[in-house]
């Protein structure tokens, strides 16, 4: 599904964010990418999302070589990868429904489809009763659920979650991870970028550990073992 082959990313003049990273993620896997701040895990996420391009190496999503992606293809790629961030990135003047609908609107979806799909994904994330609330009227966990609903609305093959629990307390963080696991259970590949030890250890799923831009371990049922 996702293949990184000898990928390096060097920021000018000489900052090596990633150095010869290689791994393969199979369809339907739940993989945590862990590492300390500045280890290169967010760069890895940005490369997958085509926000950055690698200096060397290749990145494949299925048969698609993302490292050589054309500018016009980027939106198509991004509709196949649902992205969730630590800061939610919700529009404050739009309700939960409108925030999720916005993703379909900009993709040119029909209004009837928007009316049908948005309540469905909001139901999946448990916000059916709060779909007309604005982000300021929702808790942090609920806002992250809206962001996840938005990521799901294009029915992506992959969910890329970059520090999704970074702003949440422990209980809410567990709820968000449970939600991601449920999404994974129905076949969606989940790539979780985090440095939250407890979450990684509790899941007992595949863990890729990055340190100073290099993969230092890739364990099938791994734990967080960084200092």
């Amino acid at each position: 599904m996702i293949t990184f082959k000898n990928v390096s990313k060097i920021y000018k003049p000489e900052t090596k964010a990633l150095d010869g990273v290689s791994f393969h993620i199979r369809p339907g896997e739940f993989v945590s990418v862990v590492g300390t701040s500045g280890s290169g895990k967010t760069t890895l996420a940005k490369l997958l999302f085509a926000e950055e391009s690698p200096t060397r190496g290749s990145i494949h999503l299925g048969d698609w070589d993302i490292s050589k992606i054309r500018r016009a293809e980027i939106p198509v790629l991004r509709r196949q990868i649902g992205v969730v961030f630590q800061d939610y990135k919700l529009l404050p003047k739009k309700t939960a429904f409108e925030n999720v609908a916005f993703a379909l609107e900009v993709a040119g979806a029909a209004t009837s489809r928007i009316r049908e799909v948005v309540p469905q994904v909001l139901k999946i994330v448990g916000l059916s009763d709060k779909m007309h609330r604005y982000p300021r009227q929702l808790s942090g966990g609920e806002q992250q659920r809206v962001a996840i609903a938005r990521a799901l609305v294009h029915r992506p093959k992959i969910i890329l979650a970059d520090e999704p629990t970074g702003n949440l307390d422990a209980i809410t963080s567990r709820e968000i991870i449970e939600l991601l696991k449920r999404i994974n259970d129905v076949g969606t590949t989940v790539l979780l970028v985090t440095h939250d030890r407890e979450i990684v250890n509790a899941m007992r799923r595949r863990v890729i550990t990055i340190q100073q831009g290099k993969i230092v371990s890739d364990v099938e049922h791994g734990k967080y073992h960084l200092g």
Partner: protein
Amino acid sequence: MRSVARLLKFAGQSVLRNFWLSFVTTSVLLLTLFTVNMLIVMNVLADATINSIEDKVQVEVYFNQGTSEDIQKSVHGYLAALPQVKDVAVISAADSLEAFRILHADDPEVLAALAEVGGNPIGDSLLISANNPADFEFILAALDSSPEYAPYIKEKNFADHQAVIDRLSDFSDQVRWGGLGLAGFFVLISVLIVFNTIRVAIYVHRDEIAVMKLVGAQDWFVRGPFLLEAVFYSAAATTIMAAICGFILKFLEPQIRSFFTGVDVSLTTYYWEKALLIFGAQFLALAALSMITTLFAMRKYLKI
């Protein structure tokens, strides 16, 4: 179609959310159009005035006293045969004298001098109309260079008319250049204002733009609303300008007509007949200018 409707919606939201900025932008574009329309009006009035004067320009060729009627007829025939000549009329000495008296009725010194000379010092004359006032030079040169007729010609009174036309043309050109300079100044101001408006709009919508990128919006979908916003401002300015023109012309036309008595000019008719062309062209030019400015602003501030 659906996407176009959404682009229109987003552009409309942007215009309304930054209402005062939109108001100022439209006002400056309106000022630009105002100067352009002032130029059009001045052009129409100047052209009508010059045409009116040109239509009235006639050259009088006076014969020496005692020139025979046969010679006069020959000169008449010679001039009438020239393709540049529209009409030639023979004015008798008596009619010329009467016209001279009427012309100088308020000038007792001239009349006294005329009385002192006694009799009719003015000979017979020919009144020539040309198809084009510029042709007079050729017509008179043809007469001067004819050894057969030149000795019978006493004088010609063309120079004064030409001086008036030349002065009017010069004045009209100066006004036109001044107007063009003013319009250019407002175009420059418009470019700066539109540029700033789009810059602010991009800043105001930075979160939406980031989310659009996140959820896979095409580049044109991100840029489209800003370009449409520029078109909205142009359309609003042109529509308001058309309304202002209609209003002003309705109330000022009688005053303009009375000021330009004798000049065949109707600004209302001119604008009414060419409204689509005049305001269509103004809208297209303004929209093109605004969109080009927007493209530059997006290139500088909108990173997709």
